[in-house]
């Protein structure tokens, strides 16, 4: 097992290098300028903008810039953000708590909700509960988050005034009132995300369970006189876990990718919102840092998922 893990880790190095080079190349070839917001301002002539591009090293060909980026990264230096002229790493780290709080919590909630719903829907296939769960999954799956988000905002913030439109990232968890305010401001973005993620996971759990429910070993277990509940939870569910765990593990990095649309809509200044504003402002160092960290997490969680296979399914051996 440890040999296998070591091999996979070593193999991931060239993968990550290739990923980072490709992202860098795309960013370098994409048009844009850190100062494009001030374009046309006669007080900031084109020559000043050109000068700033030169100071940022944007005039070098992209392989040179990539090499510089890579070598400084190996020294632990993520560079500085073009738009705030402060270290990228600080800016990224500042966003992690908010993303974990909203996107991470939503994901947790989605898993906790989806698995029982999926199991019940499979056990009671075609019952009213299953039908209802199916309808909800398809609605959650097909309605885009910018629509649900705007709808929630109009109903619960503008009309009913239950929840705020503006997310306050300066709030702590110091007092009961603060915790309540946190929950209020998290309510809408979390709901949007939960609706989407629960939908996918529910369907997945349901079909994984259905695959196993008809198997002969289920009948054998029942024939031995095992209680049905035990058969479902111990035998069928354990055997259905493999695909579910894969999906859950592979989706974990997407938490750190943030929820671009939802975060932006509700002004939750997490990693997703940072990524999209940085792309819009051509803030290459920030975009590189975010996408590279994302790539590392992706590779890592794939590895975790593969290792989990071995744990969950004794037939899988890594030697």
């Amino acid at each position: 097992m440890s040999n296998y893990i070591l091999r996979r880790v070593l193999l991931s190095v060239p993968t990550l290098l290739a990923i980072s080079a490709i992202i860098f190349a795309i960013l370098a070839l994409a048009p844009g300028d850190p100062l494009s917001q001030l374009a046309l301002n006669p007080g900031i002539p084109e020559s000043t903008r050109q000068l700033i591009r030169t100071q940022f090293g944007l005039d070098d060909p992209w392989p040179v810039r990539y090499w510089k980026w890579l070598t400084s990264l190996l020294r632990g230096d993520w560079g500085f953000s073009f738009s705030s002229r402060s270290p990228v790493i600080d800016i990224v780290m500042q966003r992690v708590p908010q993303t974990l709080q909203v996107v991470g919590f939503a994901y947790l909630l989605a898993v906790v909700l989806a698995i029982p719903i999926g199991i019940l829907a499979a056990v009671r296939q075609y019952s009213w509960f299953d039908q209802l769960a199916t309808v909800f999954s398809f609605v959650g799956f097909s309605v885009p988050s910018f629509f649900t988000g705007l709808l929630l905002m109009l109903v619960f913030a503008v009309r009913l005034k239950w929840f705020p439109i503006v997310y306050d990232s300066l709030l702590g968890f110091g007092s009961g009132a603060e915790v309540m305010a946190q929950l209020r401001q998290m309510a809408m973005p979390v709901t949007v995300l939960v609706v989407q993620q629960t939908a996918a996971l529910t369907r997945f759990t349901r079909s994984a369970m259905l695959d196993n429910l008809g198997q002969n070993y289920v009948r054998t277990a029942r024939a031995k006189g095992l209680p049905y509940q035990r058969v479902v939870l111990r035998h069928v569910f354990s055997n259905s876990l493999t695909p579910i765990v894969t999906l859950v593990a592979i989706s974990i990095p997407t938490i750190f990718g943030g929820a671009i649309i939802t975060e932006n809509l509700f002004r939750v200044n997490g990693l997703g919102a940072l990524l999209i504003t940085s792309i819009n402002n051509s803030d290459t160092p920030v975009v590189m840092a975010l996408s590279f960290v994302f790539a590392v997490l992706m590779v890592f969680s794939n590895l975790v998922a593969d290792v989990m296979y071995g744990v969950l399914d004794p037939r899988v051996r890594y030697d």
Partner: protein
Amino acid sequence: MKLKALPTSIAVLVLSALVLGACAAPAPAAAPAAAAPEATAAPAATEAPAPTAVPAATEAPAATEAPAAGGKLKILYWQAVTTLNPHLGTGTKDFDGATVILEPLARRNELDELVPYLAAEIPSVANGGIAADGTSVTWKLRPGLKWSDGSDFTIDDIIFTWDYCKDEATACTTLSNFQPIKAIDAIDATTVKITWTEPRADPFISFVGAQGMVLQKKQYGACIGGAALTDAACQAANIAPIGTNAYKLKDFKPGDVVLYDRNPNFRDADKVYFDEVEIKGGGDATSAARAVCETGEVDFSWNLQIPKAVLEPILAAGKCDSIAGGSFGVERVVVNFANPDPALGDKRSEPDQPHPFLVDLAVRKAINLAIDRQAIADQMYGPTGEPTCNTLVVPEAVNSPNTKCDRDVDAAKKLLDDAGWVLNGSVREKGGVKLITTLVTSINTLRQGEQAIIKSNLAEIGVQVNLKAIDAGVYFSGDQSNPDTLNKFYSDLQMYTNGPDGTDPQAYLQGWTCAEMNSSANKWQKGNDGRYCSKDYDALYAQLKGEMDPAKRAEIAIQMNDVLSNDVAIIPLINRRTPNGKLKTLLGPTYNTFDSSLWNIAAWSR
């Protein structure tokens, strides 16, 4: 029996999950409890429906703590502040964020008049501050100024700010405001003389307004040149400047939120109303408008740049006032005098390649006459713009009264007929040249609406318009390797907004002189994207450059505007008055053309 037990246990699981979920979405009854702390932060605000019994207990102590003045001022920008060093700013939001902390010598108010800030008075020829020959300006400072860290503000700080930005390696966005300075001398402790490299009529280019804020030498002393970007201490300083204005920095998350609190060393500290100011950023303009006008969560919302159909119902909710005035710039259609035909290859849109039909004054005049400015204003802009025929609309003194641009389709048709452009099908042509144009602009709901109106307007006179929209990030990027930038202008017509940067229009008007024509030779880095070139205009520009008397300068500027209008060098459409929104209870905010929207934030109150 046992078969029934399974659904029950699963139901328990689901139920517990739902209970967890309920924590995220508390019942409405819980809302008033959470509203209490907000109510202390914003006493005049919005949580009126809260039942009186519940918050009474929590509000009572808060009421004794909060004086008549105080509380938190909440400002919402849909672009977030990313740096607080204005000289390294990359957008209006950065200049505005820094304005709360830092000050220039003087600022412009909503009437475009100068108001002294660090200066004790505004220099003039009469008080001897402005040298009659235009070679220098002498400012008197307020005595006893202090930085928020308690140290003294000195002329060294002013000289330092110039040193900091004039070094090209610092990469100051505001570089052009410091380039005309030859020397800065301290005459005495409160008198500073700025000498220009060449005589200039406008002495208020440096250290005035949002681009002239003074940095503290003590804090940034080691940050001149490349260190400004790479040195850790300088990077920290860029997001936490020490200032002289009414508020100092308390907390800053770049790209998200800035929190300021009172600066105890501010010269008028006792007149400052709010205890704290918060500028939250991000999201979109529409929900920003809702947050001030419908939910009242924030006190002030910047730049509500939304199509009229969406904005008007939001404003109608009645909680807010929109503050619109001055000019955010003139939306215009620029005419290409050079030929953008792709068949020309490298010679495309070069100044020596005349456009096949737009060089014909009759065609340009006809297009100008056919466009329905009033319809664009009524349908797309509403309170945020009004039709204009002028290239230069601000300050009021240079807004030409001589131009007219009422829509007249018949006159336009007659002009084209007389010039020999005859209708062939739906498009006019002459000698095999068809009046088929491409109108390019940035991707933006408003602009696509305008494009559609212009297309149908011009179809009426037999000019076909093909529409094209480019991502704003590309269109405004100035990227030399991209063919779709407005600087290259590889099309016949293009539409965007621009306006002068200061009350003196010289730099702006320079953008139509022959020397400024964009071409591959100057890497399309000049200001004249239409490749317009006129001897009359150049002569007037030379005259303007040499004239020192403000009244005469205004006269010349109006003449230059009229030349552009009569020649239809560009087609001005709309004077944009992008509004800010404020709660009705908030006092102080004004519109402002040439300075930050937060220029007078020290005086805001409830």
